[in-house]
């Protein structure tokens, strides 16, 4: 089943989307002649989601890389979009932002306890950044865990470079780190107007009531992968001495999600099923599906959440996020765009021409223009696109036309603009040399053929 919802932005490092609206509550009520009653129970359901990929973290670390800036802009917009604004006195606006909850995920490699800690540390890093709680970053810095050690020249250098303090090279103190973290957070956590944005701890699902962040941020460990290898694939990866291939294949599983809930939703942290980021896996296992052990096995076939819906071990998370557009792997389609290819030498349409569209070096689409010279395709992500059209070799702009999709504007320079929700059709003139003739396969026209 396809993702249910609307994707508002896709980048190399993440995704922002709004969930499909929930159907109204339908109460099939029994009337009563005795003491009977009907009960309706409120639940929290996410309105929207934001996912940041492994790519935005230092390898095997919870350190947040500066490129996350691009995804954080999407988050800022998403929060804005789902903020309710009331005018209780008719004049002055009062804002009710959607409460957030952060979920970190690791890949199903190594062991449950290790992965629970690591995913919790990534969740803590994101939560700490959004709230500007530098003490949470200090906690990560001063308590390295396995390979997750922030106290390296590389990480310090990354932060210093980003905030314009490259000349600082010496050791840090708690005080200079607090300053550095705060500046770095402000520098990367910005909205589309390049203004630093932050989230009040009370605007998280648990309302910041719990000192360990219960219901505000948590690590799911390796319990909820979006992709489970087949047994054969896994055995093959296990035989490799070099685990690079397995690590790469597991990229989609290493992610952090932020869910946005209905404004006004607050849960009592004590009644929230997920354990704190720093707690063990026991509470997670209480919420497991009854068939969790089977779900967590590498089975005969490769499984993906978007197809089989059976890769999450935690039932509670599955209910919250299983159908979220942010947990469906690669999004199906962000843009449905079509191009009209016409020769500007004679004004004729360039029909039935073979073309290829590439994302980086990966061949994305291979097809032919239709009878009207149109190219129609869903495109699932922003990025640098290259288009090659066969049969036009030798022309100045052909065979490769770089199509640059710039960030959220989705603007394709010089030719057409792609915007979510906007018109998806654009005329695309190929500036071919008027002296050259375009060789294209003629499509036989039956009515003419009959007469001739």
């Amino acid at each position, binding site marked *: 089943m396809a993702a249910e919802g609307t994707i508002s932005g896709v980048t190399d490092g993440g995704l922002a989307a709004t969930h499909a609206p929930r159907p109204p509550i339908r109460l099939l*009520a029994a009337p009563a002649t005795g003491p009977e009653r009907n009960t309706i129970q409120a639940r929290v359901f996410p309105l929207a989601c934001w996912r940041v990929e492994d790519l935005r973290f230092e390898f095997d670390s919870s350190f947040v890389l500066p490129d996350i800036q691009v995804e954080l802009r999407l988050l800022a917009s998403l929060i804005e979009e789902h903020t309710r604004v009331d005018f209780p006195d008719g004049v002055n606006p009062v804002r009710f932002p959607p409460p957030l909850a952060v979920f970190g995920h690791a890949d199903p490699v190594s062991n449950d306890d290790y992965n629970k800690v690591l995913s919790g540390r990534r969740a803590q890093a994101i939560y700490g950044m959004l709230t500007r709680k530098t003490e949470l970053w200090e906690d990560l810095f001063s308590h390295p865990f396995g390979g997750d050690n922030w106290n390296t020249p590389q990480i310090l250098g990354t932060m210093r470079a980003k905030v314009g303090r490259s000349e600082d090279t010496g050791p840090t103190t708690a005080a200079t780190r607090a300053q550095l973290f705060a500046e770095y957070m402000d520098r990367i956590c910005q909205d589309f107007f390049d203004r630093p944005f932050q989230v009040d701890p009370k605007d998280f699902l648990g309302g910041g009531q719990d000192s360990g962040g219960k219901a505000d941020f948590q690590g799911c460990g390796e319990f909820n992968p979006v992709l489970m290898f087949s047994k054969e694939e896994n055995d093959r990866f296990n035989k490799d001495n070099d685990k690079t291939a397995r690590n790469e294949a597991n990229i989609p599983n290493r992610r952090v999600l932020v869910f946005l809930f209905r404004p006004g939703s607050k849960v009592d942290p004590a*009644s929230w099923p997920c354990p704190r980021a720093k707690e063990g896996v026991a509470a997670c296992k209480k919420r497991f599906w009854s068939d969790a052990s089977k779900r967590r096995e590498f089975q005969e076939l490769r499984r993906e959440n978007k197809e089989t819906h059976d890769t999450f071990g935690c*039932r509670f998370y599955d209910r919250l996020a299983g159908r979220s557009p942010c947990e469906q792997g690669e999004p199906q389609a962000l843009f449905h765009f079509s191009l009209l290819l016409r020769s500007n030498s004679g004004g004729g349409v360039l029909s039935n021409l073979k073309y290829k569209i590439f994302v980086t070096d990966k061949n994305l689409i291979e097809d032919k223009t239709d009878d009207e010279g149109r190219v129609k395709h869903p495109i699932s992500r922003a990025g640098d696109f290259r288009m090659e059209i066969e049969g036009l070799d030798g022309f100045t702009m052909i065979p490769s036309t770089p199509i640059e999709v710039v960030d959220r504007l989705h603007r394709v320079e010089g030719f057409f603009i792609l915007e979510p929700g906007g018109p998806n059709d654009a005329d695309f003139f190929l500036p071919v040399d008027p002296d050259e003739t375009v060789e294209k396969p003629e499509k036989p026209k039956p009515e003419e053929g009959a007469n001739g």
Partner: protein
Amino acid sequence: MSTRYVVKQGDHLTRIARAHGFDDFRIVWNDAENAELRQLRGNPNVLFPGDVVFVPDKEAKKESGSTNQRHRFVVNAQSLKLRVRWLDLSSKPLRDASVILSLDGTETRHVTNGEGQIEQPINQSADEGTIQFESDDLPFDKVIPIEVHVGHLDPVETESGQRARLDALGYDAGDPQQAGDKNLAFRSAAEEFQCDNGLTVDGKVGPKTRAKLKEVYGC
């Protein structure tokens, strides 16, 4: 003349009894012919389509009294009520919330009591309605009203009855029309309910789970 009435979706005993001229449903319900149905369903207002209700003959009732005197005859009709209770995100009663109940075109305003509950006397013909919250700062949507279908709750022994209760309790048991999704969503809802209520988590709605579901839902 007595008849055997086959229950349709939306029927409840008060409606069936009154349609056959009985103001007091108990005369029908307690008829010896309905012993098996009583045993099976327990609650006269939670019947299942296809259930057969025996409707006895109407007996004219004779009362003696002197002439030239006024006599009061109290019809022993059982009043029918609709009770709805709301629990908040922490499963605590949602108190003091203002709601508008609209039933067959008639609006009544209510404030939930200490148990998070409202109660409205209703007519046996009451069928479709909505309930709308009047405030924005509640864990329920103010804009989208709750749809109410009176008399449509199926018995807890049936899957549709289990689904209706799980849905109302926020467990989202899935769309029964949607093949494939159906079992997974239902099992998820049933397991989550079992987990929340300290029952064995197996996704199967057995006698213990049914009893608990009835208890938590309220009928």
